[in-house]
């Protein structure tokens, strides 16, 4: 190519790079504006004893179905929904999924922009997100929702409490590093920077493990399944395998293996072994007094109570793996209850 043509082409290439770059940045206001049209403000019951009377929600169909969090706000004779253009409607509660803690409302409106729950967007730790919510009820009428930015901090199983009570949903959530845990934010949306729905902002919960406020969202596929159940009128969520209950005489107890722990006198008595009766499976497996049980069947346990709770879910017809700490060394043992007094299988 002759010298004369190279420069203009180079110029054009440069310009198109430039346009591409600023296009990405210029997109954000458009993306945000687009999402705002799908969002609704919800007003209902509350306003007493610190429970707010407002929260967030979003359209999931173009005929006015609204998805939001299942909460005390909906426990009202009149639920009012305010659209992004300021129109007010009274909403009907169609149903709720109590495990996922999500609810579907219906307003009589047509042709509204909405999110399609069937379309789920890939996202992982580090994905940049936008969180839209009417936190603190700041926005009224046609005022847009507040927008926050952050990244997906973790994808994990929810282990949370509201006050003293655990919440029923124990499935997958996104944890974000924006402070989305605010009054009125439940039912808001978490999206990618392109405006695709990642999930619904959750309720004001504390992380069970360390009592910090949890900033989380329930992923779109989980919402999709929940909505399906609501629409079909199914009320019982599929039960979790781990909640299978065995009868008392079918489950593991350490004393069956000749192991006695220290007396459980405190709220969180560490599970130290107190006595091991000779010639029992526990003794033959090598467990000794002063051993500290750290993991039961691979699950971390930090108290006698937690040990008992784990054991209750395991049938003693199956071998039990315990991980112990002795003299600052980890030891793994497998306990097998034999029927007729033969020696247990050594690990």
């Amino acid at each position: 190519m002759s010298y004369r043509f190279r420069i203009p082409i180079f110029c054009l290439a440069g310009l198109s790079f430039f346009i591409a770059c600023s296009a990405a940045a210029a997109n954000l206001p458009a993306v945000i504006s687009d999402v705002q049209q799908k969002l609704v403000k919800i007003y209902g019951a509350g306003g007493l004893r610190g429970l707010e009377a407002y929260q967030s929600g979003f359209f999931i169909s173009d005929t006015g179905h609204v998805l939001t969090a299942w909460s005390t706000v909906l426990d009202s004779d009149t639920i009012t929904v305010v659209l992004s253009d300021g129109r007010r409607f009274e909403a009907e509660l169609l149903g709720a999924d109590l495990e996922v803690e999500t609810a579907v409302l219906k307003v009589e409106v047509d042709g509204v922009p909405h999110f399609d729950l069937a379309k789920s967007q890939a996202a992982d730790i580090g994905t940049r997100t936008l969180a839209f919510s009417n936190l603190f009820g700041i926005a009224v009428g046609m005022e847009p929702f507040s927008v926050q930015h952050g990244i997906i901090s973790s994808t994990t199983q929810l282990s949370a409490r509201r006050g003293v009570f655990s919440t029923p949903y124990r499935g997958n959530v996104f944890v974000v590093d924006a402070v989305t845990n605010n009054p009125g934010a439940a039912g808001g949306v978490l999206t990618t920077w392109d405006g695709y729905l990642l999930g619904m902002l959750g309720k004001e919960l504390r992380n069970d493990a360390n009592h910090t406020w949890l900033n989380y969202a329930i992923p779109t596929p989980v919402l999709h399944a929940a909505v399906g159940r609501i629409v079909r009128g199914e009320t019982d969520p599929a039960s979790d395998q781990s909640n299978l209950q065995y009868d008392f005489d079918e489950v593991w107890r350490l004393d069956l293996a000749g192991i006695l722990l220290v007396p459980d006198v405190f709220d969180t008595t560490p599970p130290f072994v107190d006595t091991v009766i000779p010639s029992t499976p526990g003794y033959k497996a090598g467990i000794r007094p002063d051993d500290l049980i750290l993991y039961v069947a691979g699950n971390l346990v930090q108290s006698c109570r937690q040990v008992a709770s784990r054991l209750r879910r395991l049938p003693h017809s199956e071998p039990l793996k315990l991980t112990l700490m002795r003299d600052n060394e980890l030891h793994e043992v497998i306990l097998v209850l034999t029927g007729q007094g033969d020696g247990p299988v050594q690990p």
Partner: protein
Amino acid sequence: MTCLILLPAIVAVRGAGVDLPQLEEDAIATAVRRVAPATVRIELFAGDGTDLFSSGIASGLIVSPDGWVVTSESVLGQNPSAIVVMLNDGRRLAAQHVATDHSSKVSMLKLATEDPLPAIEVAPAEEIQVGQWAIALGRVFESDRVNVSVGIVSAVDRILGRAIQTDALISPNNYGGPLVDIHGRVLAVLAPLSPETADAASGTDWYDSGVGFAVPLERIMNGFSKMSAGEDVYPGILGISPKSAQPYDPVVIGASRPGSPAYLAGLRTDDEILTVNDRLIPHWVALRKAIGPVYAGDKVRIGFRRDGNELQTQAQLVAELDPFSRPFLGILPQPAVAADEGEMKPAGVTVRYVFSESPASSAGILTGDRIVGSERKDFANRDELRQFVFQHLAGDEIELKLFRHGEQEQLKIKLAGHEFSVPESLPPPPAIEQSTDEESPLPAGDRDESNPLLPDQKALVYVPEDLSPDERPALLIWFHEPGHFDRQEMLDRWKPFANEHRLLLLAPISSDEEQWEPRNIGWIAMLTRRMMIQYKVDERRVVAHGYRAGGAMAYLMAFSAPSIVSGVAVVESPIPRRAEVTEAAAEHPQDFFVANSTTGKSANRILEDVARLQELKHPTVTQNLGNDPRYLNSNELELLARWINCLDRI
């Protein structure tokens, strides 16, 4: 023409980044992947107590492939019996807590491992810039993925110069984990530090607030050789106190504690510190920031100014200072200049008594000598002489200039330690000999005082009727045994003593028959201050005195108001458990007189108390009352009076 077309293209290409947000996301993901293998999960077992924010799962960082892990000190706050570290490949290793860095609030663990662990790259601390990317990692949610928060470095040199600040969300979800830059190099270790208090976990209240702190790893690793050998490291102390109370005033030394690093480096009162390690120090706040990150055992170069000259020295900081051990010259001073010396300058200090077998007596100081200064400075009064002497250690040699019968003398004196015994006889208590113009007589005799705000707080006051405005009396605060209070009995008992030994009596009256109310101390201190001003009480001779339960009040008042109470005399009284016994300080020296019997209720405890007071370097005189518990007899009261007389000794 060609250039003109080319230029915008070049500028456009430079300014473009294709999809910049995506590039940033990718860079962050790469950085995370780089340091994730070294970010570990820590599981804690069998701790004591319950801490609301602690769950038994935390994060840590592998700092050396042979098995060293750092985490936040707060993570180990409940003294777990067992610590397990889980690597990113799922392997679990037992860990031992080997040492703690008390300056950074970071703990060092050792893993028992044979295979080398993932390595990290450490970012040099001085390269850390405000505004750069800061990525916080933890491993508390899923054991096979790290949890991430992204922000920037908000500030450097926080928390006394020990930490950087970030706006990434920092919480128990990542305490102990690393804060890395966009290249995946470790900047710092995340910890719940607080600018307000010094506890290991005090910053937990600020979690997820947008204000988070982390300690630069390079700093922590400077102490690695000590910590890996099992030795804790501590923040370093210099040992100086300011002349001015304003934090933004120039650093002029008020006192450098004898024996401290500053003292051993040669720094003294009135020196002005100009630089530390060649860094300019315009005020005290800057000094704290310069010294804050330095560890005990480390040396700092100090540039200072003395008498107009700029000098250099080096100090080796320590973890803690020894209590102030009062050096002894061996004289009792007159409080102010004698009238017949009149206008002579410098005013100096007249000696009213020389202790036998003391440094003063060995050097030949005589009663009546007027000590006017040291080699370098003049003394305007006895407080300046005292400050000068207290800037030295026992065994130091000082030079004093004095006037005797109009002639100037110069003496070299080697100071001794603070052990002394009350002499058998003493000249009468001191008085100001110059006459004043004050005509109005001060209220004398006995009277009742009460707190206008809380009328149940009362006291009986006695002032000798013949008290002259020229006198500098002592003040005895007498806490009677709670119970029956007989005003006349009290006066009969104390009036002769007060008259003879020239002291004022302030006897608070216990409102409760059974016990004293410590809350009364506030009002008693106020009343004491008022009397001190009104009657020109010698502030070196304000004594809190009590018998049994009264003695407990005397102790409490002394430790809570050391600037008022300079002497404590107790009979059959142990130190109350709620009292915070402070170590001896040059600013407010306190003397103790402890009398008890061998078979009294708390005899053993009192012996321990005396040992403790002596350990804290408070000069303590003891008096054995024999077998049976009782109050002081008349001889012992005379001894007490002489002890009070000696309280202003230098």
